[in-house]
């Protein structure tokens, strides 16, 4: 316990959450009767939460700075010896852990700020803030744990908190909350079982230290890796364990979704993937190919599902799944190259460079994604605040009402689509370069899928921008009055959007300062990437140069030229006429609102794809639903045996007795 408090990035949110929760337990019953007391409790909880998160973020920054000089470790204390196994907790911040802690703490702070307004008016708000704080503590603890026990505990705590937070949403969301808990609970047990198998096979020390166990050369290690991989994939939301993400998206409170599935769960999942694939195991080629295929399939299939969604949050959720594919693909490519190198007697310098590039792409994409995806969800939350719905058919024309939100959403949408000079472009570019350098057929196929997926992402976001912000006013958008832009909701979005720009233009700096130290923590050599001058990102001596200053200058120049042309055009012919349809003015009438949901109906109806979309929409590829279906058949069979008839039950007893007698007497007589 002292250890947890001693590690400030964990201890501060943990203690603050406990304080808020204790206050609620003590005074919550009275607050149900007195509105004034409830408001006081809520304000206290908000103040404590924001203060604690500011503190934690400051600690995270200093921890990150300290970790650049070398890992910061807290000695494990209070080990519980159970004989053949010892339960121990220990924490350590190396490059990778401190990056995760930094990102998680920062995003949590922004979401807490956003929640001040977005969550206002909901019941049991102090509980929300307590859970939020504990979530940060759990994520930080998971990222810094040096033993598998600590990892499992924090990992499951994050699962439960997500489940509880999702359950705070709309009443009809309870099925989705259950699905989330079921899939993630399954994944957690997989992680536990994987660790247990490693322990049983003698690959782990008694205290379950998160140390290297070497190549995946025995069936036990392959099984353990795959089980743990399932945990990482489910948390991050990669196929085929992704289905909880879209299910939970619709009814969960939007800040919750922006915090966990969109950002923190991605950080955790990819953290574990990186740690396992490069730090704990030395993954073989076949497993690395599995990773690449998962990544490419996730990119492509999820983005196709995203294109045809009618609900903004659900659409964003499918993108959240799709983007994970890039991270998994990057990691898979790096693992494949390294495995191929090891098989040939040690990776060459070129292979190390290719691995470093792909890894950096995957990890940077994790960071970038958590930023722009969080921003997109917050924008969706703002739209929902105004319109009361996220149904794309009923939104529209919000740009005038929410100009700041619109600009932030535009930046984030361009970033997720990989448009230069924003951050999404830099990380995707690195992944593409990694795929090119890997030099295998599968890598090229994956490259094509990734590029195609990126194009479809852009297409899908054009639909979002049109349906939500542009066009005429949607029917759910009130004409006048109602909430407008609120500063406490806008500021976090602006910060995130600026981060999108900053990490794009400063791509070289981001790779140099954030990603390469993290890679070094899991044994990725920083070869092949030069960041001369801090801005330019020079890959493999000029073959993959990304010069953001030059590019941004050119882009800005292009935009300026376009604006000039537009302005000249406006000067030349000024003719604005109201729209008349059938003799009626249709210029600002929701009746004539054209929603963007039909944009990609043709794709949905395309021969060959139509069946896929139909089955996908019906959940034919949903592992959860399939398991439920077959499970129900099996259980129905079992259930039918339990007729309730005494004679039947008595006969089971006698049969069981006969079996026992035969087995026991038979074996004993035979000396067994």
């Amino acid at each position, binding site marked *: 316990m002292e250890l947890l408090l001693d590690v400030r990035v964990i201890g501060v949110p943990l203690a603050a959450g406990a304080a808020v929760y204790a206050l609620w337990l003590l005074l919550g019953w009275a607050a149900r009767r007195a509105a004034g007391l409830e408001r006081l409790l809520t304000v206290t909880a908000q103040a404590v939460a924001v203060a604690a998160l500011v503190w934690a973020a400051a600690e995270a920054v200093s921890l990150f700075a300290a970790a650049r000089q070398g890992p910061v470790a807290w000695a494990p204390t209070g080990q519980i010896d159970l004989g053949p196994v010892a339960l121990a907790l220990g924490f350590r911040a190396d490059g990778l852990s401190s990056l995760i802690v930094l990102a998680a703490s920062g995003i949590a702070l922004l979401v807490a700020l956003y929640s001040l307004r977005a969550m206002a008016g909901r019941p049991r708000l102090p509980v929300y803030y307590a859970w939020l704080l504990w979530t940060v503590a759990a994520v930080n603890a998971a990222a810094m744990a040096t033993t598998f026990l600590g990892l499992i505990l924090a990992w499951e705590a994050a699962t439960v908190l997500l489940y509880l937070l999702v359950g705070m949403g709309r009443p009809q969301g309870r099925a989705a909350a259950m699905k989330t808990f*079921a899939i993630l609970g399954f994944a957690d047990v997989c992680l536990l079982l994987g660790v*247990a198998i490693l322990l049983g096979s003698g690959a782990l020390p008694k205290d379950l230290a998160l140390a290297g166990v070497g190549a995946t050369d025995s069936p036990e290690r392959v099984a353990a890796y795959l089980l743990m991989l399932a945990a990482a994939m489910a948390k991050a939301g990669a196929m085929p364990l992704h289905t909880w993400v879209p299910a939970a998206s619709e009814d969960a409170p939007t800040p919750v979704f922006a915090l966990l599935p969109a950002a923190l769960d991605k950080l955790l999942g990819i953290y574990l993937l990186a740690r396992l694939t490069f730090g704990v195991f030395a993954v073989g080629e076949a497993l690395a190919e599995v990773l690449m295929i998962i990544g490419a399939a996730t990119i492509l299939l999820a983005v196709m599902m995203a294109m045809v969604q009618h609900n903004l949050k659900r659409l964003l959720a499918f993108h959240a799944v799709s983007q994970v594919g890039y991270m998994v693909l990057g990691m898979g490519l790096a693992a494949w190259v390294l495995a191929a190198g090891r098989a040939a007697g040690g990776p060459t310098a070129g292979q190390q460079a290719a691995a470093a590039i792909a890894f950096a792409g995957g990890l940077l994409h994790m960071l970038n994604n958590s930023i722009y995806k969080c921003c997109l969800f917050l924008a969706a939350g703002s739209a929902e605040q105004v319109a009361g719905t996220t149904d794309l058919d009923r939104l529209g024309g919000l740009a005038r009402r929410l100009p700041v939100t619109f600009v932030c959403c535009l930046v984030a949408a361009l970033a997720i689509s990989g448009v230069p000079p924003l951050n999404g472009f830099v990380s995707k570019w690195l992944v593409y370069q990694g795929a090119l350098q890997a030099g295998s057929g599968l890598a090229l196929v994956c490259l094509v899928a990734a590029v195609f997926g990126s194009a479809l992402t852009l297409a899908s976001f054009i639909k979002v921008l049109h349906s939500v912000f542009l066009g005429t006013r949607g029917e759910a958008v009130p004409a006048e009055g109602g909430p407008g832009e609120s500063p406490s909701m806008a500021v976090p979005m602006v910060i995130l959007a600026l981060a999108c720009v900053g990490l794009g233009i400063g791509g070289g700096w981001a790779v140099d300062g954030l990603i390469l130290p993290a890679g070094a923590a899991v044994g990725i050599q920083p070869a092949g990437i030069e960041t001369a001058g801090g801005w330019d990102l020079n890959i493999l001596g000029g073959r993959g140069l990304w010069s953001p200053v030059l590019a941004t200058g050119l882009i800005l120049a292009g935009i300026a030229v376009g604006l000039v042309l537009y302005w000249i055009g406006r000067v030349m012919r000024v003719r604005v006429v109201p729209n008349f349809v059938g003799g009626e003015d249709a210029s600002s009438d929701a009746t004539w609102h054209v929603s963007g949901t039909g944009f990609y109906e043709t794709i949905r109806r395309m021969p060959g794809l139509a069946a896929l979309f139909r089955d996908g929409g019906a959940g034919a590829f949903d592992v959860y639903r399939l398991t439920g279906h077959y499970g*129900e058949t099996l259980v*129905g069979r079992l259930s039918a045996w339990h007729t309730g008839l005494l004679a039947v039950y008595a006969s089971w007893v006698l049969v069981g007795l006969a079996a026992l007698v035969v087995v*026991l007497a038979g074996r004993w007589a035979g000396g067994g």
Partner: protein
Amino acid sequence: MPLVVALPLAGGFLAPALGRVTGSGRWAAALPLAVAAAVLVLVLAMQGRGDEAAVLWMGGWKFPVGISLYADGLTRLVLLVIAVIGLLALVFSMDYMRQYTSPSLYYGLFLLMLAGMNGVVISGDLFNIFVFVEIAGLASYALVAFGTEADELEASLKYLALGAVASTFILVGIAIVYNVTGQLNWAKIAQAVQGAGGPSLPLAVALAFFLMGFGLKAAMVPFHAWLPDAHPAAPAPISAMLSGVLIKACGVYAVARIVFSVFGATETFGWVLAVMGVASMALGSLLMLVQADFKRLLAYSSIGQMGYVVLALGAAAVMQARGVSEAVVALAVFGGLFHLVNHAIFKSLLFLCSGSVEYATGTRQLKELGGLGARMPVTGACLRVAALSISGVPPLNGFWSKLVIILALVLGGFYTLAAIAAAVSVVTLVSFARVQRYVLGGAATAAAERAREVPAGMGLATVALATLCVASSLVMLPSVRGVLVDPAVRVVQAGLGRRAPQAAPVADVARPACPAVSGAGAPEPRLDKPAVPHPVPPAE
């Protein structure tokens, strides 16, 4: 020591008499509460004695008439569980039983059941174990039928019929054992069996009979079928006692005691237990998924969770026979016993919560419930804690015992069994996510509309158990474990290695307070030899 049986036994008869005299139900709970509290104090006073085993020959009668009581680490652990759960169930009953008539009868039966269970645990000979199993059983048959509705009577009848079959076979088993060894004291039977170089064919048959009889009481597949009818039919506090304690005291404890301490463990026998455990886990938790009735779901989950305990003990027996290191065997046994304790806590809490929900809404159909998390915050929070506990979510107690069981299985080389245990844990989690979804989440249904928080007594009992769900995680700490569970683990483990009965009482002889106590330690294999005198030591 005899008081833990005598007090509730006397109270069991006094309570209805008092009820007849005073005529009012208001104070009916006072006597049972006092008795249960006194038993808890006695049991607490017995704790913390390490590996010491106390033997007491009642009334100084000579063998085989004498009644011997025996308390070692395992006894003390199970007694503690019974006493705590029993007291809290009684506290819950105070308010809950206002819905029923004739409370004094109820309390009488309750105390009889308590006496029976304590008797089973503390008896030193087979025949008394049988007698007390019957006392507890008869009380529970009556309590299951306490509501006297049609389905409750039917459930009770099924329970009675199958229970009687089980009792008969237990009795026949005892007869066989007595015939072969001439002993009833199980410690001495153990010596006789070992002296003969292992069990013979008749003893193996007796073992099968015991396993079936006690297995039925423990609701192990395929002897489980009565439980899903009987446990939901009883009033909620009784369901809590049945599922939380009775199937352990009369079932698993008896199996662990008789089979391990008396017959020792062979690989075959270990596998039989492990297979029964796996079958119970699989069947119980799969069927739990589709139940519409809240209490029936809990009943199936009891079958599944007891499967964990039996699997852990069975696997420990196999490991012992295969020569796996002692430490791993001890870990498996510890996991099993720890899960037994934890299951007692969270399952009785779940049943009490189901009682609170039924009390407030009048229904226990899951689909008729909803939105109770907001309307009944205390019960809702307790139910949430219990559901997360049984799902194996850290830092609650269920996580730790499942973790220990899975680690022990893997360390013993049983990868498949560990995977099954993990899978069952997922199924449990899904089932209880479903419970939370229907009961706590969602919009309020018609039945939930008028739900109010339950009276203080019921709330107090559930909150206390929810606190225990968190607090019993502390058993993982060496200091707590060393006092409460480790002595019991060593008893079971020694039984596995067939070393127990000699070691413990010898230490007892050395105690100056009870100079002449010698139970199983004395060599006394046959009836015709002069019995060693057994003076009565000071009462515990």
